[in-house]
């Protein structure tokens, strides 16, 4: 994991002091509400329904146990004893007092954490695969590149007041586990025919009102050119992105208006000036970043563990958990473990101070002291010995994080919605809970197989409903909550935006609609087909017919 240099720490401490000053000037009336707004947003501080919200950055989702314990302390001391893992692998506090925020930031800075650029119209936290560095299917570890992007984008003086927020994701694997193609920029780490590692660059993806999959604009970028190319993209966007309408201000609108080819041309004209300038990455800079992401001291373990095998076959619950919540690891004798934060009746992603500390203890005991947040709002222990799995599972069972549903219909991603968010049109958490209750038969859930379901409380799409196999969106119809349902979204093997099934539904009907969609799938699937494969084969019609049949009777 990256460890701060003395420079990083200095910048962070100076930021805390700067923000303290800004907050003091605001409370003294020397900064108006409007002027304080972009400043506090760049520090992750929002206004929301009941209280401000503070969004803390977990760089590309990585945290150590010291940081988890600090988050627990903050939840307990400054908040109501819990926090929330977001779909951008950040951590949110829902109830801090604004005047306490400088103190919270000061505490976070002692463990190399902050809220810098977690909101506002600037470059946000760069995200990546939560299996980075341990996945079997990756070209190389994406995290050193994320870290280089983090440093370049942190307090970038030119790009602090962009037309709109800007999100970058890095993907190095065959399966895109970070939904990279719905980001403003997706950096894909690829190997060319000569065996050289470089980047394929995509731009203009995004969710919200105009969901779009990013378009490729550069097939193979040399490693040392990554930051100059990003700088060129950002400069073109900063100068020419629309600023007159916030719904048309994301880079995707500019790319679409110009066409990707014309956008590429502008970027590359700009890039020609920057490419061989001082921004060009040095071999030393790359090597230094990589030096922080070395493997832990893995033991040489046998590939097969007899005791484990036996437990899997005799203990059904453990066997299910093993199959569903753990994944293959690049190192023989290890597994990747996902902690499910999706127990029925718990708001997806919510975690209490005590639970954070318990998770930290387990990570110290079984996971080399590191934890990752996923964009599906779960947590990951990336390196667990096979021999420890049974004990870890038992401990997680007690804590409520062993629900064996990762990647299944009840592993619902859900934004905070009407419970907290001032922008919400509708509740999202109760919808998630109602679906989890309906699909409470685990065997049935397993039989359905891989199936993503995501819920957003409004068009901002924080729940990523567009790229979900089944997506649910809260809409407002004359002051009443309604829900729009879409199917066919996906990001894993390919990226596609889901299509809306038809007119929206009242809250009480949503679960029935979901069930009809599932029945249509079950009735039509061939042996071994997943939900998305069946949808791709059949299209929308059979689902639509089933859903709206009753209404037309």
């Amino acid at each position, binding site marked *: 994991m990256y460890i701060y240099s003395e*420079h990083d720490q*200095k*910048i962070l401490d*100076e*930021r805390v002091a*700067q923000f303290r000053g*800004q907050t003091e000037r605001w409370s003294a009336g*020397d*900064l108006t509400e*409007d*002027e304080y707004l*972009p*400043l506090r947003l760049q520090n992750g501080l929002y206004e929301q329904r009941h209280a401000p919200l503070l969004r803390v950055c977990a760089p590309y989702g990585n945290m150590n146990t010291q940081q988890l314990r600090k988050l627990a302390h903050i939840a307990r001391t400054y908040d109501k004893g819990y926090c929330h893992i977001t779909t951008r692998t950040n951590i949110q506090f829902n109830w801090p007092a604004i005047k306490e925020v400088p103190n919270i930031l000061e505490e976070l800075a002692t463990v190399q954490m902050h809220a810098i650029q977690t909101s506002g*119209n600037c470059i946000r936290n760069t995200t990546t695969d939560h299996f980075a560095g341990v996945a079997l299917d990756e070209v190389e570890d994406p995290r050193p590149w994320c870290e280089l992007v983090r*440093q*370049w984008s*942190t*307090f*970038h*003086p*030119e*790009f*602090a*007041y*962009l*037309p709109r927020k800007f999100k970058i994701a890095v993907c190095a694997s065959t399966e895109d586990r970070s939904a990279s193609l719905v980001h403003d920029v997706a950096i894909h780490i690829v190997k060319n025919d000569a065996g050289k590692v470089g980047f394929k660059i995509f731009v203009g993806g995004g969710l919200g009102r105009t969901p779009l999959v990013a378009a490729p604009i550069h097939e193979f970028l040399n490693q040392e050119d990554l*930051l100059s190319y990003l700088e060129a993209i950002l*400069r073109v966007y*900063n*100068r020419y992105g629309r*600023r007159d309408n916030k719904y048309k201000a994301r880079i995707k609108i500019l790319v679409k208006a110009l066409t990707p080819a014309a956008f590429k041309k502008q970027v590359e004209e700009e890039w020609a*000036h920057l490419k061989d*300038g*001082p*921004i060009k*990455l*040095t071999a*030393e*800079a790359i090597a*230094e970043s990589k030096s922080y992401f070395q493997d832990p001291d893995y033991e040489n373990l046998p590939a097969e563990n007899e005791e484990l095998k036996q437990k899997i076959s005799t203990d059904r619950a453990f066997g299910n958990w093993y199959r569903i919540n753990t994944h293959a690891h690049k190192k023989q004798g290890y597994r990747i473990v996902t902690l499910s934060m999706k127990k029925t009746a718990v708001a997806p992603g919510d975690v209490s101070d005590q639970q954070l500390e318990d998770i930290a203890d387990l990570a110290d005991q079984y996971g080399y002291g590191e934890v990752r947040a996923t964009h599906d709002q779960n947590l990951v222990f990336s390196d667990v010995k096979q021999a420890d799995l049974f004990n870890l599972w038992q401990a997680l069972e007690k804590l409520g994080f062993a629900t064996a549903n990762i990647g299944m219909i009840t592993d619902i991603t859900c934004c905070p919605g009407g419970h907290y968010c001032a922008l919400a049109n509708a509740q999202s958490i109760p919808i998630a809970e109602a679906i989890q209750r309906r699909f409470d038969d685990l065997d049935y859930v397993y039989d359905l197989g891989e199936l993503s379901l995501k819920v957003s409380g409004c068009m901002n799409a924080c729940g990523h409903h567009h790229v979900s196999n089944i997506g649910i969106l809260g809409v407002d119809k004359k002051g009443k909550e309604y829900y729009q349902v879409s199917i066919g979204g996906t990001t894993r093997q390919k990226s596609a935006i889901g299509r809306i099934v038809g007119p929206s539904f009242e809250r009480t009907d949503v679960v029935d609609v979901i069930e009809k969609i599932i029945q249509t799938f079950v009735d039509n699937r061939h042996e071994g087909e997943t939900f998305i494969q069946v949808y791709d084969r059949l299209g929308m019609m059979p689902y639509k017919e089933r859903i709206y049949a009753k209404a037309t009777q």
Partner: protein
Amino acid sequence: MPKQPNKIIKDRKIIDDSWSVVSDDVDKNDIPADGDIIFSVDFWVKNQKHLESRSNGRLGLMLESTDEINLFSDNLGLFDIISINFPAFADGRGYSVARLLRERYHFQKEIRAVGDVLRDQLFYMYRCGFNAFAIREDRCIEDALNAYNDFTVTYQAASDNLNPIYRRA
């Protein structure tokens, strides 16, 4: 075109401003014959000959954040100041324009931020090549001077330091 305050920050000091703004509707025959004057790109394009023929006084440009540099880049040497207007605090286009003027066109004279300019943008503006700041008149200009010290370490290459952190000694 924003009103120019009487005092500005230039090169870390508070000084009196010597420039007067000539608005777009001034007829070319009414252009002051001497003194330091500043005007829009449109005005320059329209009255270039006349402005160049002035014998006394310096010339300056006032850019809007959408102005393209190539409209005047051939004549950059004629200007002693380029002001860049920030129509709103959150409009970030001027940062790119300033960096381009400094780093690509090697403009060495004054680049001034005018308009909605507050202490809180000053450090980034300084990094992007601004060396003068017309702090909004309702704000304390002395306080704004403190912003130079907001950060002592930076990551990126920019106009204040052409080397990024990984190329510094």
